[in-house]
Every structure is written in C-alpha cells, then in structure tokens.
C-alpha cells in the first residue's frame, strides 16, 4: 500500500513540476498586488417586515470604479429599490467601508453592475491594469480569494492547473479543486488575468451510512473550480459597456426553448448541428408577426447553423445570448424546421416585457399583504389568454395575519376584491387602498385563483 502511494506521489509531483510555467518565487507579492482588483461587497435586502443581509465578491473593471458581480449573488426577483446599503471593503478589511451604487443587472449576461459612489478608492486597482492571457489544459494558474468578514476578509492565494478548457459555448476553465471565491480573478504563472471564477460546480459523492448508501451532491459555495476565460470575460464586458443597464431588452416573444439532442438532430437530417424547439410563440410578439409557429425548430441563426454543444442544455442560453446581444429594432434571421419543411424568417427584435423586479408593488400594512402587477410571465405560467393577463398577484403575506389565516398565499392571483372583478392592476390598487383606509371594515373578501381553481378568502379584520 505504502509503495503504491509513493509511486502515485512521485507521479503527482512529476506533474506538478512541469517545466513550462512554474510559479514564480514572488507569488505572494503578485497575489497581494492583484487582491486589489477584488471588492468584498455587503448589502441589505429590505422586505416588508424584515431585512436580510447579502454578500458577494466583485471585480473592479475600470478606473471609473465599475464593479461586476455574478448573476446569482444578488436577488433578481425582488424590486431594485428593496436592495439597499451596498458597501465595498478591501481585502483585508481596513476598517473603512466604501459606498457602492447598484446600477442593475445586464440583461444579456445576467451580471450585476455596481459602481463606487465616489471615484475609485486608491486601495483598488481595475483588472484592466494587468496583462491578460489565455491558458489551456495543464497550464499553471493561481487565484486570489478571501475569508469571510468574521476573519477580516483576509486574502489568500491558491494554485492549480487547468484540468480542462471547454467551450460551453463560452470558453470555460475547469480546475481540479476550488481555488477561490466565485467572482474572484484567476491569473497565470506570470500574473496575467486568465479567468473570472463562476458559480461552483457540484460534485456527486456516494456516502455510506451504516448499511445505507446515499448519492449526494456537494457544492462549496465559497470556492469555485470553474472560470470564464478572460477573452469571453472582456467580450461580455464590452457588451455591457456598450449598452444601457436597465435599458430596453432584446426579445422576440417565444417561450419554452428546448434544445434537441444529437439523435433527434440526426432524425431531422441536420447531423453535426443542433436545434431549439420554440414551444410557444406568444401572441402579438415579433416572432408571431413574421409567422413563426409553436413547435418550430430553429436550426440556424443569422446564416450560421446552431452548433452541437455539450451538455445539450447549454444551447438554450447560447441561443438566448444570440438574441439578447442585439438591440431592439435590429433583425435576426432564423432558419426553422416545421414538420418536413425548412423556412427562413427575419424577425425585427422587439422590446422585452417587464420583469418581476421591475413590476409595481404595493404593501398593505394593515391588511398584511403585498400585491404586484400581473406580468406577461405570470400569464404564460398560468396559461392565460392575452386579454385576461391583468390584475394583481399576491407577492407577500404576513405571517398569522387575518388574510393568511383565511388562506391567502404568495403567488395567488386576485380575481375579485369585495365581490368586484379586479380588471386592471390600477383598479385593484384603488379597491385595496379603499379597504386599507376603511377603519370600520370588519370582514374582507377576496376571490383568488391558484392552480386554475378559484377560492374565496374570507378574512376577519376585527
């Protein structure tokens, strides 16, 4: 056993001592300099009755103090005005906090964009100040990360080699282990920026407890082993800089985009390429205007066939990116298979509908719930005809309130208030305002729809 282990270790040390790009002696110096590109961010999500703290690591991307943060690190289902008190900290924590402004989420990439309230503090350096490079399989890299706030955001450095560089379709670098926090930069042996750490991958493990065997999936939220390559990072960044955050969003009006697998592609006679099924073409959308139909299969975009990607599921975000990087008013050409036919469509990109975080909300403190306006996405989920897509959705219900006791739940669609059909969202607000203001009100009746079934909510207010 010992012998096997030593052979293995010899082998391992052999691989670690590849001559090409050994790590420099001054690694700590390189790392400490580069830690200044990282901002430890804290913010608060203020909800109806409580507050929640959030945190992330962001990367400084320019001299103006712009900072980018990974998509999942800041909630996108809450209205932007509920996100408050963004502060940035240095690694390690210097005792000073720097106010950040949340600019919004870039629609195409999903990245959050923030900016230092005043100019870029001296303690930070944009990533653009460093060289950038491309790495491939086997190359030596190091990354800088930081401990939690309790440990003073102390920076650390970890090294690894690129196990795999894979196009998905963005070029992603995969390392053997997590090397730093998601949102932190990765550098090559010379200190050039090579990648931005994305959300950690999950690893499947088999756990045996007594006689039971369990398949578990493990994910360390603080250390990621997968990074977006620097080339793609800057491509996305260029797109973000060239577009207006919170501006209009490119949209063609289809929902349920499902990739096909290679076997289906072969059956459809499009070997070596792929396709996306458009499950539903929405009424009055750019796609329906040119005649796209439900279940059309897109096989080419702007003259180029859709590539076969692995996993198959990465095709959908790729296709969405092809649309989203365009601006409303531009056109997109789609080649489509419908039944046995092939068809070409040229669609004028439209403006996307409101997203949940942009919806209008109102909290009724006395009644104990929040409503928000009905959105197109609600209509699609509920299989509602376009002319019925209106009214108010319950977005929050106060615990143990009269309405909760009566059965009101988050997500309910309010159809009637006090026996009156709701109609528009504004009308719902008017009616609810009146109920909220009525001090004498003892009983409050709502009709709500949930799972295609309606039921009455009879709340005793007194």
């Amino acid at each position: 056993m010992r012998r096997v282990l030593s052979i293995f270790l010899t082998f391992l040390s052999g691989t670690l001592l590849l001559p090409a790009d050994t790590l420099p002696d001054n690694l700590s110096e390189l790392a400490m300099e580069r830690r200044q590109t990282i901002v430890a961010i804290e913010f608060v999500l203020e909800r109806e009755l409580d507050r929640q703290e959030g945190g992330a690591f962001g990367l400084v991307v320019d001299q103006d103090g712009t900072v980018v943060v990974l998509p999942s690190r800041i909630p996108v289902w809450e209205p932007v005005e509920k996100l408050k008190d963004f502060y940035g900290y240095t690694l390690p924590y210097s005792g000073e906090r720097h106010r950040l402004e949340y600019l919004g989420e870039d629609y195409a990439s999903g990245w959050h964009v923030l900016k230092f309230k005043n100019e870029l503090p001296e303690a930070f350096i944009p990533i653009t100040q460093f060289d950038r490079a491309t790495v491939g399989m086997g190359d030596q890299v190091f990354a800088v990360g930081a401990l939690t706030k309790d440990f003073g955001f102390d920076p650390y450095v970890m090294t690894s080699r690129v196990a795999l560089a894979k196009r998905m379709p963005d070029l992603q670098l995969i390392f053997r282990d997590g090397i730093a926090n998601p949102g932190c930069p990765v550098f090559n042996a010379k200190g050039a920026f090579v990648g931005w750490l994305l959300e950690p991958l999950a690893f499947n493990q088999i756990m045996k407890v007594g006689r039971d065997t369990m398949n578990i999936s493990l994910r360390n939220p603080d250390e990621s082993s997968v990074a977006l390559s620097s080339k793609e990072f800057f491509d996305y960044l260029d797109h973000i800089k060239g577009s207006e955050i919170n501006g209009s969003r490119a949209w063609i009006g289809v929902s349920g985009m499902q990739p096909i697998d290679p076997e289906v592609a072969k059956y459809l006679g499009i070997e070596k390429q792929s396709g996306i099924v458009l499950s539903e073409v929405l009424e009055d959308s750019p796609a329906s205007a040119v005649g796209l139909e439900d279940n059309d299969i897109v096989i080419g975009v702007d003259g180029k066939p859709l590539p076969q990607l692995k996993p198959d599921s990465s095709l959908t975000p790729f296709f969405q990116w092809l649309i989203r990087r365009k601006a409303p008013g531009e056109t997109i050409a789609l080649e489509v298979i419908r039944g046995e036919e092939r068809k070409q469509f040229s669609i004028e990109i439209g403006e996307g509908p409101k997203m949940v975080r942009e919806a209008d909300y109102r909290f009724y403190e006395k009644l104990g719930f929040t409503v928000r306006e009905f959105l197109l996405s609600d209509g699609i989920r509920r299989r509602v005809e376009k002319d019925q897509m209106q009214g108010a959705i319950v977005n929050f219900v106060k615990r143990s309130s009269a309405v909760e006791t009566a059965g009101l739940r988050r997500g309910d669609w309010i159809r009637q208030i006090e026996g009156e059909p709701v109609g528009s969202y504004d009308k719902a607000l008017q009616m609810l305002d009146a109920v909220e203001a009525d001090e004498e009100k003892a009983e409050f009746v709502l009709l709500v729809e949930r799972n295609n079934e309606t039921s009455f909510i009879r709340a005793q207010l007194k």
Partner: protein
Amino acid sequence: MNPKRAGMLLLSVFIALMLGGCVTTPPVEEVEVDGPTSDQGLQRLLEAVVRIDVREVTFRGGSKQNITGQGSGVIVSAEGHILTNAHVVSNFAEEIRITLASLERVKGELLGWDHWTDLALLKMDMEELTERGLTFTHAAFGDSDTLYPGQPVLAVGTPNGLTRTVTRGIISNTNRFFEGADHVRGYETGYFNTWLQTDAAINPGNSGGPLVTENGEIIGINTRAYLGANNLGFAVPAKTAQLVLAGLMQTEEIVRSYVGIVLGPMQDLETFYNVEANEGALVESVDPRSPAANAGILPGDILISLEGTRLDGRFPEQLPPLQNIIANYPVGTELTFGVKRQGGIEEFKVTTEQLESRVGEEWAFDKWGLSVREVSRAYARENKLESEDGFLVLGVKIAFPSDRAGMRAGDIVTKINRKSLGSLEELRGIHDEFDDDSDPLFVEVTRNYQTSLFILQP
C-alpha cells in the same frame, strides 16, 4: 388543488381512502331485504361478513406490476353479491379471493365500481359454491337516515388481517363533511355525500366492512379513519351504499351529470352578498372549459335556484347533496340556474355532460419500458392542455428505450412520428410493431408546457 382541501388532507392520514356517494341511476329494484331481526340479526350479519384478498396491477415505474391488498366486505344478496370499497377492489383487480364466515375461500369477480363513492360490487363464484356445497347468509340494510349521535354501533371486518373482528362504539356524528376529495389510486372520490362518524375502532383492513346497528342491520360501509387518532372512523351511509348497489347491479358504472361548478358555503357571507339566510349556494370555482364555464357562470355567482327549486348551501354539510342533485339529472339535460350576480338575478342555461374521472386508462409498454395513462377530458381541462389527445407518462424503466431517450414521469406524449395519437389502441399498435430492426421513433412530448423531442431507439 384548492388550498383548503390540501390542508385537510395534510391533517388526515386516512386508513383507506374516502368515499363520496350519490347515485343517479333510478333505484331499479330494491335489493332483497328480509325484515329486521333481533338477536339472530347480528348473528346473521356476522355470517355475511367476508374477508377479501386482492391481487391487482399497477402501472407505476414503467411497467405492469402486481400488488396485493386485503379488506372486508359484506354479502348483500342471496345471489352472492358483496359490497365493499372501491379502494379495496378496483378495476385494476386481477384476482379476488373471498373468505366466508365458514373460513372457506371462493373466487370473486368485480361487477362494477364507483370510485366517486368508494364502493365496489363483487359477486362470488356461485358455481364453485354449489359444487363445493358451501352456504352463506346475506345481511340486511337498516335506515341510515334515522341514526342519532350516541347510538351504539358495531364495526365488523378484517383490521390488519385479523379476520372476523367486531369492534363496538357509537355514532359520533351523523353528517360529517369533508371538504374536497381524496383519491382512490388517483381517482376522485368524496364529492357527493357526507359521512357517518363512529368511535368504533376502525383500522386498515376494516375497509369495505359494514357498520351495523346492535341487531345487525347495515347502516354504513366503513371506509376510512384517521391513522394515529383515537377512534375517528368514517363510513359511507347505507342510503348512499344502497343506491350505488342498485346501480351497479344494472351497469358497471354509475352515470352522473356534470356541469363543472365547485360550491362553497354561503355561511357568513349572506350580508356581504345581500341574500337572505338559508338562500343560495356560492360558486367557489368553475372548472375551465366546463359546461358551466361555457355558459358564463363565474366564481362569486350565487346559485339561487335550479330548475325553479330554490337552493340552500349555507353550511358545508349541505353542499354534497346539492352536487348530488345536479349529478342525478340525466346526462345532456339543459338545466336552468337562477343566478344572483351583483344585485340582479339572471338565468343561465347549462347542458350537463357525463361526469368523467381525470384518470384515464393505464397501460405499460414493455419494450419501451414505459407506462402511461390516457389524458382524459377532465385532466386536459384542469391542466389547460391544448388537446385531449395524449398520454401522461406514469413511469419509465431505468435503461429501457424511453429512459435512454430522456423521457420522464409527468411528460405528456403528444405525437409519435409527427402524428397525434387518438387512442391507446393506436399506441399499442405502434408498440407491437416495434422490434430490434425497427426504425427509431420520433416522439414529441410536452413537459411543463414545453415541447421536448426524443428518439426511441430499438
């Protein structure tokens, strides 16, 4: 689906499933009932109670599998008819064994079932009985309408496999209402009747056995209980059971009318809606694309009258009988509802459809490792599916073609080789021809309202 209903089910883990109860078929001929007896009554009843062992099939998990179960029943005619629960013997039953009071076993067959009331009618193999010289007695029904809380009752059956167990208690409530429905293997039950509640101990295996008076008259069929609770048992009233029995003696299923209205109690809303107390029934929900929806009836409407007769749905206990009134009209009847909506009273004409289960026929396709259930009209409407043509995947067998293609339980198969599938028969035809040399099949599936495409490789 309704929030309150879900809550109800969480609270209660039923021994068996619940039942509903109403019937439409006009009582054709009274089941033979001998006059009530006294001491001998109970003895006779005990001799009429049977144990039922069932082997039935299930189509979960991508294949046809056998499961076995066991329950109770009561012989109700000299011809060997046995009344039991639909959740004891369903139309999935393949082999039924009846154990008589003499401990002799005979074969039984299912004549019909009515999952809406959780009742099933069996018949013993009379030839076998004659050949073997076996005899039996049959029990008599009592009047479940004249029961009173506190009245002593007995439950007879096979709890946990303990054959011929008699437990004793009282009627705890004569008119118990459960909101919404539970399921008999996915089949709806419990819309049409209220229940007898008893504290006579009822445990798993009692299902289908009789609840009787002290002199042995059947006043209910024990159907469910709260597990873990102390003696909260529920029985289908004999009145309901007798009507279903009479119906199933004639045909395999009970035909009911359906309009698609879910009622809610008016209680406490009279002032709100400006109606008199004890007037009107509240429309809580209208099923999408149902006759009532098509006629324009809306949630929040108050049904004041049906065919000129005033309706009273003030309390929850009054709602099942109202649903029953609608169900009892012949299918296709045009019903006139007087509806109160925002002050005025309007008339709505609704033509009834036949009540159908949301559960369609099930089948397993061995070569594909796929089990499916036909999409029914009710299922399609409830889920706002565009078409009623399709098959809900109940399960896929690991490493079989449907699994390898990527299909999953919950998918709805809509097309094969670009053609819609009308019937299970068509699907069987395609399966029969599928072999090692077949061309791959191009399968179109709806999953969460999104279209996925798969190839079934031989």
